């Protein structure tokens, strides 16, 4: 786990690979190509790249039209602009007509850092998850990102891919990892409690599990790279096996992975649940690590949550 790669970097590389595989893949950006890493694709495939300028609404609508004419558009911007700013365009021009548009949003979450709350999107999973026809992918590392991007291009319909700015450890073996959309990955077996995580919080969950193991607590860690459709079976089985669940995500505790898991367990198999995430508040400027600590997105916070659900379980 020494090498860190940002998922946006992996996205940029995967797009180029995809561009070579599939001539129908086109890419749109809204003046952030250097940051979202779509610039790599633009250099190799200038004819298939459209920088629409600072006009995200038009970007989504144009992507819809490209999809309606048989293209496989990937539209990128920062998560805050790629979802909230264009919510109605995504709803009415993409999700409702079930058009084959992939929205790959980088700079999600508070690890955007110094840019502050205006740019720290912690509501995007909730916004995308509630849309009918939308698939929501939240890869945890570079390997998963590549797989998610390639898989998204194969799916027929709207897909939201959530990516980050900061480097994250590589968790999966690129030679053996198999990405199945909608299927959670068991990262660590355990019987006392389940930590269900996505994105950068999978790493934090594994660190917490390691520390808890030293205390004699056996933790099951699930990597839910597909928040929608949620792997209901894996979530319910984790709850049945352990009887206590903690969710962890770099997102508001409302409406994201934690919300999805809580809804699912409330209906199918109620057990004590605690959601680790941003507690219904906006972020602020700071270094990513400082923000993660201040807003409670750390292995330490996951451990506290684990102890709490274990207490409630008894």
């Amino acid at each position, binding site marked *: 786990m020494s090498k860190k790669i940002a998922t946006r970097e992996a996205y940029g590389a995967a797009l180029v690979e995809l561009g070579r595989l599939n001539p129908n893949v086109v890419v749109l950006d809204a003046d952030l190509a250097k940051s979202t890493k779509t610039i790599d694709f633009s250099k190799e495939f200038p004819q298939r790249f459209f920088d629409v*300028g600072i006009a995200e609404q038009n970007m989504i609508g144009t992507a*819809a*039209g*490209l*999809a309606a*004419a048989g293209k496989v558009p990937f539209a990128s911007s920062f998560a805050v602009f790629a979802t909230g700013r264009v919510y109605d365009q995504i709803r009415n*021009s993409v999700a409702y007509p079930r058009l084959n548009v992939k929205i790959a949003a980088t700079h999600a979450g508070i690890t955007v850092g110094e840019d502050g709350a205006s740019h720290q999107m912690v509501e995007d999973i909730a916004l995308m998850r509630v849309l009918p026809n939308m698939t929501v992918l939240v890869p945890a590392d570079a390997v998963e990102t590549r797989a998610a991007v390639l898989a998204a291009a194969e799916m027929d319909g709207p897909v939201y891919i959530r990516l980050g700015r900061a480097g994250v450890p590589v968790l999966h073996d690129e030679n053996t990892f198999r990405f199945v959309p909608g299927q959670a990955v068991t990262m660590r077996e355990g019987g006392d409690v389940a930590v269900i995580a996505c994105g950068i919080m999978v790493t934090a969950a594994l660190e917490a599990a390691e520390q808890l193991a030293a205390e004699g607590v056996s933790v099951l860690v699930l990597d839910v790279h597909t928040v929608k459709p949620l792997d209901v079976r894996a979530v319910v089985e984790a709850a049945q096996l352990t009887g206590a669940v903690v969710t962890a995500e770099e997102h508001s505790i409302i409406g994201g992975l934690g919300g999805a898991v809580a809804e699912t367990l409330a209906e199918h198999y109620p057990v004590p649940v605690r959601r680790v995430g941003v507690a219904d508040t906006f972020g602020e400027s700071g270094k990513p690590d400082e923000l993660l600590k201040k807003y409670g997105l750390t292995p330490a916070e996951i451990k506290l949550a684990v102890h709490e659900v274990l207490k409630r379980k008894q």
Partner: protein
Amino acid sequence: MEIPTETLERLKDKAREIRRHIITMVGAAGSGHPGGSLSAADIVTALYFAEMRIDPERPDWPERDRFVLSKGHAAPVLYAALAERGYFPTADLNSLRQLGSHLQGHPDMRKVPGVEMSTGSLGQGLSAANGMALAGKLDGRDYRVFVMLGDGEIQEGQVWEAAMAAAHYKLHRVIAFLDYNGLQIDGPIAEIMSPGSVADKWRAFGWEVQEIDGHDMAAILTAISRAGAVRDKPSMIVAHTVKGKGCSFMENQVGWHGAAPKPEQVEQALRELAPGSC
């Protein structure tokens, strides 16, 4: 441009048929948007019965011309044209807005063959049209993409993002119409939020602009033909129209934006639109 008289007569008859369908289906539905459907009827007729390269037997034909009804609330005029053109039976028109019907209150491309884009939330159709035109360029296809915008609709900011982009990408196969009937739900657009000099605005955005009487069939055909000759920019045809056109009690009445005629009003309108009466 010389247009044979019989062509014009045929199109005028067809436009009258389409207006009759609009009145009948909105009347049957008990709700809907007759005013802006009637104002657009002549242009839509010209497109579907004279201009567009389409094949109702093959609604997915890649080489087809596209029409995006950005002002999606005018769905009745689109449905009437598609039915008359043979995409689905005209008998279906009276199921407009009813539970289980494929004819939704606003066009749904997944439910109706021939509908190229789901619309209804204003301001989004031109962006989609741009995307279709960009795809055509990439694929080396020469299809055209026609768009119908409402005059109230251009108050939406996204329209201008798309206007800028169409000019930037030199999408000369995008040909847009502005259904300039002067009225929006809350009143005259000049009073609600004046668009100012519409033609100048589109020109300033890099478009080729023509202004026509949107009920003059010869003028519509001529404008489309001229737009087709433009090679380096998109075309906007500002069509001066009358909201509710063809139905005396609806013409220029803001209240008929989104109201259905009662049975006796349907009868009166159909009398006014009877063959040979106008």
